[in-house]
Structures are given as C-alpha cells and as structure tokens.
C-alpha cells in the first residue's frame, strides 16, 4: 500500500476513528504491509462494508478490530481456496434450501462479486458517507440479482459471515484485535476451567480474555490502516 507520509492530517481521511487499540498504533499511516490476497481497492470496499455491519461505538468497528486483515488472510488460505467445498460440476441453479451452488471457491466469489458491484450502476460504496453506506448495504441485502455471475445474496451472506467471524474469532487469525469482540461480550477465551464456579451465580464475572497464543509480552500486530483517500 503506497501511502503518502502525513496524509493522515485529517481524521476524515481514514475510516478508523481513534480508539484505545488504534491509538497504540500511532504510525498506522506508514503501514506498508502488503495484503495477502485483496487489492487496496478491495480492502477499502470491504472496510466500508464491514463497518456498516459492525460500526464503531464504545467498542471498535470491524475494520478497527482487524476484520479486513482477517478476511484477507482467510481468502488467501484454505477457506478462500475452497477447502471443504465440493466444486464438481455441473452447476444448475438450486433452491435456497440446497445451499452454495456457485462454481467458485470463496476467494473468487468475493473478488468477482465486488468487481461486479463496482462495475454496475450502483454508487461507489467507498465514496459514500456512513448513512448512505447503510442504505447501500440494506439494498444489497435485499438484492435478488446477480453481479457478473455471482448472486448478490450469496455474496452478501458470505461477507456478513466473514465479518462476524473476524470480529469474534481468536486473534491468531488477525481479527478481534486486542480482544475487541471478546471484551465486548465478556468471553474469556481459549483457556477455560470452570469446575469450581459453574453453579455459583455469585462468581459470574468474566476473567480477562486470553487467546490461544496469548502472550502479554508479545501482542499481535495491529490491523493495517485502511485509507480511502488514495
């Protein structure tokens, strides 16, 4: 990602508004880590979409919590390549009850779907303000059409699912940065031993979250900064 130093002069230029996790990452605007799968354009589009699904409030938005980083890693690895997906043809159209019948693994589904939407008459999602983005996503959720050969409904469900996972799964997958999702609901994580307290309603406070690779001394790297002005 090519980012001009100092371009973060106005906070309007970046989707992520300040929050504690983000503040720790003061040099985010210099972040030049390459994406594993998505392009910069796709990342901006995904960030705009994800932050409608999970906007910022007392807790970070999806992109602030690393959901785009999560989706990028997922699309670059087994899930995106179609692990656990039977892709033998033919591919006649089915009913909703018959599930996924698209002839592509998820990485291609999402790439083609985003490209299809961006090539359509729909406004550019990334250029809209938050309220207009919400309207865009609402329309996409009701869309019964196809983009290129990708049914909007299939694309939408896939992206909504990925966003949710990215916010709440273990930080080893790059989302849920600083345990944003786990702190929000009070989920203590992967280290779990509750024999002495499961039946004691007086001891219901959640222990602080600890992920699979929890190491207080070596936090995972914060999400990439995603800008819309380049």
């Amino acid at each position, binding site marked *: 990602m090519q980012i001009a130093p100092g371009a973060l002069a106005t906070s309007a230029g970046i989707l992520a508004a300040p929050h504690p996790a983000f503040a720790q990452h003061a040099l985010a605007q210099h972040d030049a880590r390459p994406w594993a799968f998505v392009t910069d354009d796709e990342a901006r589009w995904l960030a705009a979409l994800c932050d409608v699904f999970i906007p910022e409030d007392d807790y970070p938005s999806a992109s602030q919590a690393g959901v785009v980083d999560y989706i990028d890693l997922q699309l670059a690895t087994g899930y995106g390549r179609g692990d656990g997906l039977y892709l033998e043809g033919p591919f006649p159209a089915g009913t909703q009850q018959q599930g996924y019948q698209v002839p592509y693994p998820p990485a291609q589904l999402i790439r083609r779907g985003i490209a299809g939407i961006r090539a359509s008459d729909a406004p550019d999602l990334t250029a809209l303000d938050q309220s207009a983005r919400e309207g865009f996503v609402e329309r996409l959720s009701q869309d019964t059409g196809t983009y290129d050969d990708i049914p909007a409904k299939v694309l939408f469900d896939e992206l909504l699912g990925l966003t949710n996972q990215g916010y709440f799964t273990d930080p080893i997958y790059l989302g849920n940065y600083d345990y944003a999702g786990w702190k929000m609901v009070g*989920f203590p994580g992967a280290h779990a031993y509750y024999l002495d307290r499961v039946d004691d309603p007086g001891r219901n406070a959640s222990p602080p979250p600890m992920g699979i690779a929890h190491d207080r001394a070596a936090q995972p790297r914060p999400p990439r900064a995603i800008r819309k002005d380049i």
Partner: protein
Amino acid sequence: MAYETLPKTDVVIIGGGWTGLTAAYELAHTGQRCVVLERGQKRHSVTSFGAPEEHDELKYALRYGHMQDVKKETLTFRNSRDQQALPMRRLGSFLPGTGLGGAGIHWNGQIWRPLPSDLAMRSHYEGRYGAGFLPDDLSIQDWGVSYDELEPHLDFFERICGAGGYAGNLNGAARAGGNVFEGPRSADYPNPAMKQPISNTLFGQAAERLGLNPFPMPSANVTKAYENPYGAQLHPCTYCGFCERFGCGYLAKADPIICVYDRIKDHENFDIRFHAQVLRVEKSSDGRTATGVVYQDEDGSELFQPADTICMSAFGLWNVHLMLVSGLGTPYDPETRTGTVGRNYAYQTIAAVDAFFDDSVSTTPFMGAGALGVVVDDFNGDNFDHSDLGFVGGGYIACKQYNGRPVSYQPVPEGTPAWGGAWKHAVRENYGHHGDMVIHGSSVSTPENYLDLDPTWTDAYGRPLLRMTFNFPDNDRKMSDYVMNRAVEIAEEMDNVTSVSSFNLAAEGQDYSIVPYQTTHNVGGAVIGTDPQTSVVNRYGQMWDHHNVFVFGACLFPQNLGYNPTGPLMGLAYWTLEHMKTDYLQNPRPLMDA
C-alpha cells in the same frame, strides 16, 4: 478393477467410531481376528485435542476441522422428488466426523435411552389409540427389539461412558428428581449428575411450578474420576464450553478413543488401518453372503480384504451408500414403495426458545458442557395424551448451557436487525443474560423421505453420490409447534425474564434446508425389523439378504425418537454383538427366517 488380495481375516469392520471400535473390542476378546478400516487419520484425545489449541472456534466449529471432507464424499439433496437434487457442496445441517473415533469425538455427550414405547411405536399407538390412529402416509414401524431386551446393553454403554445423571425409574420404582417417564433402570447412573448453572436452574424451577417433571440431562461429560468396565480412566469435566464439534483433551467427555480404542489397540486380535477408504463390499457368486471389502489405501492402491464376517460401522448415511454402491439388499423405490435400502430416512425436528433475563440474572455461557442441561420429558414420545392433537411423537425440552463461543453464540431478542449498530448493541447486552432452550423432537418416517443414488454427481472415488430426498412431514411440523409452545410457557414462567422468542425450524411453509446446522442425527435408510419387506436387517442387526453382514448405527432406526441417537444405537450395537458372540459365530446362518 484389479486389486491386491490381502490375507483373509475373521472380521472386517468398516469405520473406527463408537460402534466399530466396540465391535472390535468385543469380538477380539472372543478370539476373532478383527481388522478395522478407518477412512480418516490416526489421532488421540491426549495428543490431538489439548487446550488451548483445541479451543479454536474458527478451525473446529466453523471450518469443521474434525468433520468429513465433502470434496471426497458428499451427497445430493432435494426436498421432494419433483426437484433436481444438487450437491451438498458444504457441510451445514449435519456434521459427520472422520478419523479415529468418528463422530464420537465431536459429540456433545448427551446419552439417552429410548422410551419403551419408542421401540414399539406402531403397536404402541395402535394399542393405546386404536388401529386406525396412525395416518396412512407414515411408514412408522416397530424396531423388533424391546426395551427389556436392550436394557442391559443400554446400561453397559452408560458404564463405558461413566454417564452422570439421576435415575427416575429404578427397577420400576419412580424417583422424583429423575426422568419419571423413562423405562425401568436396572441400576442408577454410574456417576452423579452435572452441576447446573443459573439459567438451567431457573428453568427447572419454572417447570416445577407448572407441574412438570424437570431432571438433569444424562451426560457423558464425566462428573467424577472414574474407571470404566474396560479399564479406561476418565476425569471430571471442566465445563470449558468446547464439547460439540471439538475433541476433549481433558479425558472428561467419553469418546471411543479413550473408552475403547486404548483398551483394545494392543490386543493380538486387533488391527486397524488408517486412511483406508472402503469403496464397496464384495458379494459371493451366489449373492447370499459377502466375501470382504475393497478399499483404497493412503497410496491410492485398491486392496481386497477378505473376511468371514463384515461389520458395517460407518456413519449411518455412508452405511446406506455402501449398500447401494455394492448392490447389498434391494434399493427402495418410492414409486412402487418396494425395496428397503434407503427406505425410512428420517431426521430430527428442532425448535428453539430463547429467554432473555433482566440485569439481575447474569449467565456465564462460556462455562458450559455438551450435556449440561435441565430437561422436561413430559411432552416426549407418548408421555402425553395424543388423542386430539393430530400428530404422533414428541420431544424433550431442555434448557442447556453448552457453549458461549462468541461467533456461534449471539442470542438477541426477536426483531433485532441482522447487522449494524442496533445488532451490535443487542449482542453485547444479551450475551450474559440468556436462557437457551431446545425442543429436540422426533421425526416420523414417510414413503417420500428416502435415500438412493444420484444420477449425475460422483465422489472422489468415482462412485455416484448418495441422494437425499427429505422434507419435514406435516406430522412433525405440528408436533414441533405444539412442544415449542409448551417450552414458551415454561420460559414465560421463569423468573426475571424480560422477553421470550421462539423459532421452529419445521414451521408450516418452511422447507427443510441443508444449510443451517440442526443436528447430526440422520437416521434410517437401513432399518431394523422383523419383516424383510420393510427392513434391511433382522432384529439382530443382521442383513436379511447376506447373513454375514451386520449393520450398526442410527441407520437402523425405523423412525427417529425424540432423543439423541448415541445411547440407543450403542444399546443396539451391544445387543447385536451379544448375538454374534453367543450364537452366530459358532454357527453362521440367518438368525431369523425371512
């Protein structure tokens, strides 16, 4: 295709899960040389399922790390015969396992017995309500084996698992606090019931105030240090909340590896081969017996394993598939309603009720266990009067706390949007203030719900895919709605509840979908019985058409009862093994006249 023929063995067993490993244990100890063919990998509870790595919701619960690979084997699905079935391209509605231990690794550990009337469903209803009571479009039938016959075997499996619970019927005497509707137990559970969290306790109190009979869910999440009859050591459950879809590295959820495999693996009569994908069963030239099985090994070579006796212990659906691709038995034809293989496929009818508490009740959903629940059985089976209800069957209502994994567990009140700020706020506010109820209902068999072979798609081994034709029968839609409304009444009676919502997956007008997870309780397709016109195996689990083939698993159920299948199917397994050991193996022949 040319294949290498291996030295003959006494018994070849297809599948290394609960039934296959148990068959190997029991038969090896009677002097039978057993070869188990497991399609998946070797793994062990101690080395493969340890925390915290196993507590990875994405890898195991959402990407199905312990489940079978649909790239290799899947099925096609349609709701009715007038549709084209399409491949189940992704797992969803049900999750068969693969690898040592099979689905017994990622089960929840809910260990039930059938009601006596479940096993004689047709004769029970006709006896109580009259000969014409059951509608013509239901192919409900008796199992051909009674509760009294299965009781010692159900009891033994509970001992193998170190089950925890509280008996409601000890040798015919009812005990308050247990399931007063259950059949007589010859002994109490080997271990005490689980500790209960606040939501389950409030559910039980409300049910009691309504005059119902709550009791702790029977659990194979073990509650005390315990040694099973095979000598396996089990440990107390930690309530970690990673049961279903996960293996248990604490040795606290009974599974086929620690309970059975470890106790037989070094026996001189036991051999197991991993990555051994059985492709078909071979028949003798006169077709009366099977001669062995052809499998593909890790290197892709096809091998023929001859055997005197064959145990089909794959997951139920794949037992039926193997019969169909091997020409065992006669395939069911829904047009003529003849043939038996694939007939009476049934499922489980699931509904859910959510109770949301005010701030004075804080739940801790992450402290959970697969079988951590309080249950009401008053509306299961024929425990209630069906005279004027317009349906048969029923289900249990359980308030359970089995996981708080934050992607899978996002309870929100009815009317909450599916995303956005209001959704996010609702997830945050309700995660720790929720009572989780399930209506786990029976599933009747009908002539139109069945399994056969697909004409279009093939698996990675070139075999036609299994084709599933299934929709919820009207009977079950009504049943599920009725029992769900009883659960709503309990939820509304619970203390400190601010709102209640309900969802019936089998609601009127809603077709069964292969997409959302429901249960891995696929039953039928190779059913047990006393009439070769309507069953694949006789009441001993022996194929009518090939007497040296014995069949195990939930594929034997002629329709599904309101309980989870592992207890009943293991009761049947020990019943079959008993008759193999004491009768058949000394004198191989059909054990019943066709």
